């Protein structure tokens, strides 16, 4: 009986491959035939009406590729179906309970699951406050110095980089663009200090596209080296507004939580003048998400006290911190406060530095 059964069942199985809704009974029967064909010595209870497979039977044991694939697809469908049923049941229960239902579970996100970082700054931490009161930015934050920024590039910049520098200069008030004509940075820095610049930005270029930025706080401040990506110039932006005016923008710094993040945040904050001109209604945002810092420049308007409309002007780009150095730019003898070490730091998906 078995032997005669087999060819029949094979044919039917072949036909049913194309059928999206296989009949359970026949499948179970085919499974049985398969097993007996391969002489799997297991005692099973074949439940003809139910699609459940006996526990010792695994799809991977079928030698025939097409059939194995088919059985696997079926298995997947089953699982999906059960999942949907479970969901529906839960939903019904929730509706039935009404107010007494337990609160919805919060889905896990990477931000939720972030590995506990002991360098996260507590708002009331005194040590941090003291440090920040006496670090290189204290002069700026106490209102003593006004930022003056020098923007330059690496050697022989191409069109895109040049335009990016110009647009950056319009976004940052009191910024000047100078061409680098093969000058060594180490010689540029003392000249800048002599002329009262507080910041030096060097945009590094590769294949006609800006891809790196060195941000150096001048008197003797920290130097940060970033990787720049996704640069979008003004004319490539959709639905943008008119050019930014000369008013000093406000600054928004989001999500800089750890000590390192704090120092980087202060680095950015010190780029802009201390008192923004609210008349201009412009805001520059540095938003940190998963160690990527997104820069945006918007013009906002308050439609009423609950709604605000923003319109993007200005260039946008993303930064990723590569290294932070204590003094001014010195690649050989500098003392690095933090360096991105890929193998150590990128290993865990839920661990972030900033």
């Amino acid at each position, binding site marked *: 009986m078995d032997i005669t059964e087999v060819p029949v069942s094979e044919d039917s199985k072949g036909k049913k491959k194309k059928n999206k809704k296989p009949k359970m009974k026949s499948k179970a029967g085919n499974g049985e035939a398969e097993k007996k064909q391969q002489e799997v010595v297991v005692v099973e209870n074949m439940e003809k009406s139910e699609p459940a497979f006996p526990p010792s039977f695994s799809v991977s044991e079928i030698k025939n590729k097409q059939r194995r694939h088919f059985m696997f697809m079926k298995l997947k469908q089953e699982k999906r179906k059960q999942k949907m049923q479970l969901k529906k049941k839960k939903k019904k229960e929730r509706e039935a309970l009404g107010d007494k239902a337990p609160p919805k579970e919060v889905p896990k*996100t*990477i*931000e939720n699951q972030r590995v506990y970082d002991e360098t996260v700054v507590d708002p009331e931490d005194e040590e941090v406050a003291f440090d920040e009161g006496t670090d290189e930015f204290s002069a700026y934050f106490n209102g003593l110095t006004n930022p003056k920024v020098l923007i330059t590039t690496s*050697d022989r910049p191409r069109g895109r980089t040049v335009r990016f520098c110009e647009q950056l200069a319009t976004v940052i008030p009191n910024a000047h663009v100078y061409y680098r004509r*093969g000058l*060594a940075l180490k010689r540029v820095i003392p000249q800048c200090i002599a002329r009262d610049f507080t910041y030096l930005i060097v945009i590094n270029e590769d294949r006609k596209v800006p891809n790196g930025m060195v941000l150096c706080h001048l008197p003797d401040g920290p130097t940060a080296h970033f990787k720049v*990506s*996704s640069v979008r110039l003004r004319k490539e932006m959709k*639905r943008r*507004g*008119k050019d930014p005016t000369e008013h000093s923008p*406000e600054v*928004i710094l*989001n999500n800089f939580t750890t000590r390192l993040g704090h120092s980087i945040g202060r680095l950015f904050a010190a780029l802009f003048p201390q008192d923004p001109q*609210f*008349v201009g*209604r412009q*805001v520059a*945002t540095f*938003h940190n*998400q*998963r*160690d*990527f810092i*997104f820069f*945006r420049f*918007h013009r*906002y*308007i*308050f*439609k*009423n*006290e*609950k*709604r*605000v*409309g*923003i*319109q993007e002007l200005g260039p946008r780009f*993303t930064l*990723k911190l590569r290294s932070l150095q204590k003094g001014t730019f010195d690649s050989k003898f500098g003392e690095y406060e933090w360096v991105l070490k*890929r193998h150590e730091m990128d290993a865990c998906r839920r661990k972030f530095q900033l």
Partner: protein
Amino acid sequence: MQHDDVIWDIIGNQQFCSFKVKTKSQGFCRNEYNITGLCNRSSCPLANSQYATIREEKGQCFLYMKVIERAAFPAKMWEKVKLSKNYEKALEQIDENLIYWPRFIRHKCKQRFTKITQYLIRMRKLVLKRQRKLVPLSRKVERREKRKEEKALIAAQLDNAIEKELLERLKQGTYGDIYNFPVHAFDRALEQQDEESEEEEEEEEEDDEDVGKREFVEEEVEESDLSDFEDMNKLRTSSDEEQDDEEEESSEEEEEEEMEMETKAKALRSKGKSPANGSVARKKRAYVEIEYEQETEPATKSRATS
């Protein structure tokens, strides 16, 4: 016995020489001992028994002289003399070693020596200047980072974050007195108390505002480069009733909505979504300011259009 002419005849003219590189205009000799680098009867190191060159090794120049008696031992055929680092002294050394040698070889040796010293000097100068360090990028890592960046961008929800932050700042009062939005709770209380008086006031002003509204709307539908605020769409779709807190009564809302519908319809026929909503919002904003800030109205308008 070395028959130079025979050798030259064979390798130079007729048959094959493995060191020869021919181009359209000239032939070059790739032999490392060649003094000029060209393939000539007088510069061929194989076809001349009396031959000398200058070569440099790690910044040191040597004078190589061919000793034809040792032609049977090619490894020992070339004699090496170390030249001094001083340019003039080295030239004298060349002269004294190549005394009685043909003029051509002496001259060419000195020329070659000069050229070598010049390029050594340039090399030393370049090292002192800035050197470009090439940092190789790993493709896999770059790909991964790009994807992470995209995901981070989506997770960041930048627009929402910025708006939230701005509203926070407004609430905390960092903007001081620039924006005269009355505080929520205060206004609610006011409304409850003075409902009737407010109605009267607003009914009086309705006609003016209606007229004003209509004018505004028509103008802006004609202009095509409106759309100051692209978030109009999103924000407008939420209930209009939220905006009531400050001013309008429901009757006026309805009128507004009708106006919006008209303008929407007009604009949809003409162009697209944002102009209509832009005009709607602008009209609404103007409406707000007519209510409260009549003094500053022209200023704000000019700011909007500038």
